[in-house]
Structure formats: C-alpha cells, structure tokens
C-alpha cells in the first residue's frame, strides 16, 4: 500500500502530445479510476506510473520516493507494483501456478512460501482448483483472474489495471467487477483503474479522474462527478447529457432560435453558455413544453428513447412513458439541467 503523486506530467510521442500536464494525488489505500474516451491518454498515464514509459516533464512519486522525473528513471521491475492488462498477458508457456508464482520467485521467496502464497492468491480469485492448468485451457474470465492473482500475489504497493474487463462479455464483466470491489475491501491495496466505461468507474472507484485530450477535466468523488459536473465535457461524457449551446435570459434558454423554459433551479442564470440536459431530464408531451420534430423512436426495454431535432442537432430523450400518440412533433420540457456560462477567453 502506497500513495501515488503525479505533478504536471507531460508525455509526447514524436510531435503528438498525449499527456499535457497531469497532476493528481492518490492516498494510500485509495481507488482511483481514470475515465475518458479512446485516445485521451489514460493508458499512457498508467504506463508512466508503471515505469513502462518515461515522463517528458514533471515527476511521479510512489510514497515519498521519486520514481520518475528529470534524471530519475526507476525501471518497472524496481517499482514493486502489480499490473493487469486488457489482453490478460498470461504467459501461455507457464501453468496457472507458475504464472502466479513468478513475481515471488523473482523476489527470492522460498519454495514452500511460494506454494502457500500462490494458493492463497488463487483462493482470492476463486481459481484454486485450476492451479495446474495451462492457460490455453482457461476461459477469458479465468485468464483475467489469473492475471489479477499474479498482480496481487507479491503485495504490490499499487495495483494498476488497464481496462481489465473490456475483453469480457457483459455478464462476466459484472461478476468480475464485483470481485475486484471485494478484493479491494479485503486487501486494501491502492488501485488505479483505467476505463472508458463510466458505469464501471462510478461503481468501483472512490475517486474518478475524467480525462480529455491529455488533461484531467475533473477529479472528484463519483457522486460529485455525476451530480455536479465541472465542465460541459464531463457532463456530456459521464451523464450522457445533451449539450445545448445558446443564451439564457429571463428564465428561458434559447438555442438554434428555439426557446426552452428553464427549470426553477436555473431561473436566475443569464448570458451565453452551454446547457447540459440529461436524456432522462426532459418531460415529453407537457403543455408548457417546446414543440420539436420527432426523428425516431427506439424501444430500449425498460424505457423509450426519442430523437428530437433541434436545428441541426439531435436531442436524445429517454422516457419511461410510451408517448406513442405524438407523431410529427413532440413537446419537450427541461426538468433539470446544468448551466455552464461561456468563458470569456
């Protein structure tokens, strides 16, 4: 267990700047999720913490030790970390037992201790019965469990996970998500978890860093991220909000020349800005709603999704009621929203 500190870390591959000044502090025992769309630099950040890449500028500390920075490059094998890869990275030429025992054998642990600790680690991931199997005889979910046991067996200072669940199918993903949460509660290991799946990040972590194009847009608790997004980007990415550009005045918001009545909490905002409206935060078919052309209607099972035209933009509205009646146009009223005044830069 250790804390992790990054201060204005930069990284470029050739001319493309991939990480542009990331700072964060994770306390010992904390669980941080790095959340963001594909290509935003999550993996690169994680790999720099692991020592698989080196920073161009800035510093990384694990506990109080400087592991990466100007003139300091501690290689990955000296950082005492554990890492779980998206592609499992279980060695196909070693049995489950040998895979899990490898980090211990490198640390000069005695044979009998290795056996005991490997068995213990396999128990954590409920694979004790598979100790002698070869990886080719395991399913994807089992392989990822082997990888988790291998990453945890030597009691790493920090466990790094790079989209460990994204190669698994839906059901397995939820099962393993639960197991990771349970393991964390049991071992208290500091963890950093990379994902592009907001549900995964919000469900597992106690801190979420939302990344966009190499910078952290917001670093907060999952609840704050969800309920009080700091930027339109976070609101769009995490809540799946509709982002409306326009102007607020006198309790209404006008976008693409069409006005909406603002909800009570936003009656006082004025000026140009972005209004973030969740798909669930719009009421349809209300008398004081704004009439909008209906483009499509999708049945989602537990609810319906409506696509409404707002100028050249498409508004997504999710509604539990079946508003089958309206054809052609539907009226929509905003029930809750976040307003981000345009910055004056």
């Amino acid at each position, binding site marked *: 267990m250790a804390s992790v500190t990054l201060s204005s870390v930069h990284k470029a591959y050739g001319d493309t700047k991939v990480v542009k000044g990331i700072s964060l502090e994770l306390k010992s025992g904390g669980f941080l999720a790095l959340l963001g769309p594909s290509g935003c630099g999550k993996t690169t950040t994680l790999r720099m913490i*692991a*020592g*698989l890449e080196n920073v161009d500028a800035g510093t990384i500390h694990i506990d109080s030790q400087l592991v990466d920075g100007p003139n300091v490059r501690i*290689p*990955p*094998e*000296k*950082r*005492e*970390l*554990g*890492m779980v*890869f*998206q*592609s499992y*990275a*279980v*060695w*196909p*030429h070693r049995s489950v037992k040998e895979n899990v025992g*490898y*980090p211990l054998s*490198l*640390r000069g642990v005695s044979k009998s201790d290795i056996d005991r600790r490997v068995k213990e680690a396999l128990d954590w991931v409920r694979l004790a019965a598979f100790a002698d199997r070869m990886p*080719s005889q395991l399913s994807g979910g089992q392989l990822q469990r082997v*990888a988790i046991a*291998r*990453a945890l067996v*030597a009691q790493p200072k920090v466990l*790094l996970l790079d989209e460990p669940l994204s190669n698994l199918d839906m059901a397995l993903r939820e099962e393993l998500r639960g197991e990771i949460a349970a393991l964390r509660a049991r071992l208290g290991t500091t963890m950093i978890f990379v994902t592009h799946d907001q549900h995964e990040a919000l469900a597992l972590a106690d801190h979420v860093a939302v990344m966009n194009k190499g910078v952290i847009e917001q670093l907060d608790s999952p609840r704050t991220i969800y309920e009080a997004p700091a930027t339109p980007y976070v609101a769009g990415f995490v809540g799946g909000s509709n982002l409306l550009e326009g102007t607020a005045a006198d309790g209404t918001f006008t976008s693409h020349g069409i006005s909406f009545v603002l909800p009570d909490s936003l009656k006082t905002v004025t000026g140009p800005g972005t209004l973030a409206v969740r798909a669930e935060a719009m009421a349809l078919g209300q008398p004081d709603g704004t009439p909008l052309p209906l483009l499509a209607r999708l049945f989602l099972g537990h609810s319906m999704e409506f696509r409404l035209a707002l100028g050249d933009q498409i508004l997504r509205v999710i509604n539990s009621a079946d508003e089958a009646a309206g054809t052609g146009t539907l009226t929509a009223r905003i029930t809750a929203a976040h307003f981000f005044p345009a910055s004056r830069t």
Partner: protein
Amino acid sequence: MKRTIALGAALGLFFVLPLALLLTRAFGVDWIAIWTASDNLRALQGTLITSLGAALFALTLALPIALLVTRTALPGRGLVRGLFTLPAALPPFILGMGWVSLANPKAGLLNLALGSGTFDIYGSIGISFVLGIAGLPLVFLPTVAALSRIDSSLEEAARISGAGPVRTLLTVSVPLAAPAALSGASLCFLFAASAFGVPYLLGVTATPPTPTLTTRIYAEILMGAEGLSRAVVLSLELLVIAAIVLLASRALSARGAVRLASGKGISIRPIELGRARWPLTITVFALAIALVVLPLLAVALTSVQPVWGQLSGLSTKHWSAVLANPRTIDATLRSLALATAAATLVTTFGLAIAQTKKRSLELLSTAPYAIPGTVLALALVVAFSRDVRFVFLDRIAFVFAVANTLSMLLIAYTVKHLAFGARNAADALAQVDTSLTEAARLSGASPMRAFFDATLPQLRGPLLAAFVVTFLTCVTELTLSVLLLPTGRDVLGTLLFELQSYADPGSAAVIACAFVLLVIVLQLTQAVATRKAAR
C-alpha cells in the same frame, strides 16, 4: 476429380514410383555390412557432426539476432533482418566458394593478410560453419515470425513482476519462440545432412578427408553398376535420418503453434537498449558483414585476381575468358532454359495442386523437397535407367525415354521444387477474396472466365514469387545436375562445380558473381512488382 487423379498419377510416376524402386533395389543387399563398413561409418559420423554443428551454429546465431530485431529498438533492424535472410537466396556452394577464397589455408585472403594457416575452412568445422551460415535463414525466419507474434504486454507483465529486461527476454520471449527456433534448427540439420556441394568442396580435399553420406553416395555412383547398390543402401540411411529429423521438427512446431496467438491485434513496443545500444548494433552489423557480405566480396575479388592466392594487381582476364568461352555460353543458355521451364511447370502444377484442395495431394507435392537431392536423383536414375514402357490394351504403347536426357533433369528440378509452387499457391488461395470471383460469376462470367478475370489477378504476387524462387534455385542447382546430367553437356551448376573443384577458382568466381548479380536484379524486380501489385 479427373484433375486430381491426373496430378496424383504424375506425382506417382515421377516421385513415388522411383522411391519405391529405390527401396526394392535394397532387397537382397547386405545393408548391415554396408552401413557398418568403416568408410561408411565415418561418412555417417561426418554427416551427423557437420549437420549438428551447422544446426547449433545457426541456432546460437539466429536466436539472439532474431530477439534483437523483433523485440528491441536496435537501430537498422530492418537491414539486419535482410542481411541475415540473404543466404536463403544464395546457393550454399557460392558461399562455400567465398569462404574458400577467404580461408583456404595457403591462398585464402584472410590467411594472406594474417599469415598462412591462421584459418582453415576445410574439414568438419569449416563445413559446419558454411552450412550453418547457408542454413541460418531456416532458423532465423521462423524464429522471427514466432517472436513477432508475442504481444509486448507479456514482456511488460514480467517487468512489473520484477524481472529486468534480460531476464524478461530469457524467461518470456525465448521460451515462447523456442519451439519455432528448435524446429528451424532441425530443418537446418536436415538441410546440412542433405547438402552435397559444400561437403564435397570442403570435405573431400581436407586433410584428413571429411566424408559425409552424400559425398560417399556420389563416390559410389561414380563407380558404376557395382557401386549403385551400395549408393542405394547409403541413401536409405540418409532417408531414415531425414525422416526422423522431419518428424522432430513437425512435433516441435506443432507445440509452438498452440502457444502463440494468431497475429491479429498484436502490439509490439520495442524494448529500449539503453547503453548497450551502440555496442550491440556494431556487433550485429559486423557479424552480418563478416558472415554474409565478406564471402561475396571475396568471390568478386577472386574473379579479378590474375593468379589465385596472390595479391598482384587486378585483371579482367577471367571475365573475358569465361564470357568468350562457348562452353560457358552453352551452359548458361541451357541453365536459363531449364530453369525457366522448371519454374513454369512448378508454378502451373503447384497452382493446379492447390486448386484441388486435396490435403493428401498437397502433402505429397511438398514431400520431394524434404528428400535429399542425392537420394531423389538416385531414385530417378534407378527408375528410369532404362526406357520405361507402358502398354495399354496391347495396342497403345508409351515409351518414356528420359534416361540420360535433359528432360530427366527438368523432371527432377520440377519434382524437387514443386513444394514452392504448391505452398505459395495454397497460401494465396486461402487469402483470395472469393466474393470477387462470385461477383464475376453473377455478372455473367463462366467459371473459367471468372477464374482468369477475378481470381488469377489476386494470385499474381505469390505465383510470381514461386516462379522467381524456383528459377533462382534451378539456375545454379548443383546436386541433381551433377548426378543426372547426360555426359558431355553442362549447366551452370556443373560448370561451377567442375571449375571450382578441379582447376580454376577464378573462372568459377566469375560465374558466381554473375549469378549473385542475377539474384539481386531478380529479387529487386520482384519486390518492386509485388509492391506495385499491393498498391
């Protein structure tokens, strides 16, 4: 179906039947006595030692270099890869000539520079060394292929677990590529055991002579009818060795296939070499130049040395003598014609075999390549030493009068290299986009027309590659040519063999140089053509 039967019959007549006849020749001969005769025991020992030496040498060299070019950020690794693949395009005999020019104890250039007798290329060490270089691509290429299918995360997982870069390579990358490397090494063993030209060049005149099974077989055949049955029994011994080695290689590469994923979605992040970067680069390039480039330069130098073994100015006398000699021109034209014919036959029949999609036929067509050339030649001699008559219904008679003709050599070239055509065509057919052919059919093309319009254009690259590689191999083919050529006629291979072994290394070097130039030109043309086709 008709086509399958016809192709099978042709392979039966020119491959299975001769081998079967070879076997029957061994009946009633006391093979134990022949196998255990002291000369032959020494030949067996020579074969085993030189082949093992070649395989080990190729393995120790190929594995680290393959690791460097696939897993690390070695500067110039593409060029290194090309240099160590080069021997695959060169006849081993020419490499052997190069090393004779460099390390003949008296006349070799290295010995002239460093003092007489510093190096001696003759004998079993020299044979292992030259065959190891010539067979290097057999180990290097499959090892590179296996290493290229290892995702970097497997190595990174080891780094995070606490292993340094070297230990990571040794405990993760090497074990994963080991089956491919060992299977390649056993193929290199087979290649060396089958080799004839190099052991003849470097073994027969060594002191003491280093016989191998292939050179013993040749010596027995030269003795005529009486030697023939001994040659047959010895070639069966070679065949047994080949079978064992081939099975071992198969088993090894099958084991490797289970371990490595298909190439899809593999990402490789080369390991940085840090301070070892430049020392390693220099070492690797020095090795490539010393082992592959230097002997070729030595051949070039020999071709312009007025007197072999003396550094006394340069002269073009060998070039003008060789180029003006009607024998050379005659042999060159004959070789070019034979090689063109063989390459055409190999490509067409290879494609026909691949199109039947019959696994058994494909296997049968690749088998001759694994049979040592001496054995194949001997089998053809045994089968067709007299004209063969087939009589159907008492009326229609076929007479095969192929013994001692150029057609016999053409048949031998074609059968031996059919594997090139069949393999390339099968791989290419497997990748053909059948929807294009189907689209042609739906547009109204007949099956034949659709094949020519839609399928064949997609096969052009691989078929051209098969043609070129067969052509190049046949143009200076040595073993089959030496054993099957009718007396009084030459091809480039036999001419090279004769000039180098008996009298005139300078003239031999001229032919070798011309051939190396041909290789370079053809390979470049082919590379350009494939690149164009890919675009």
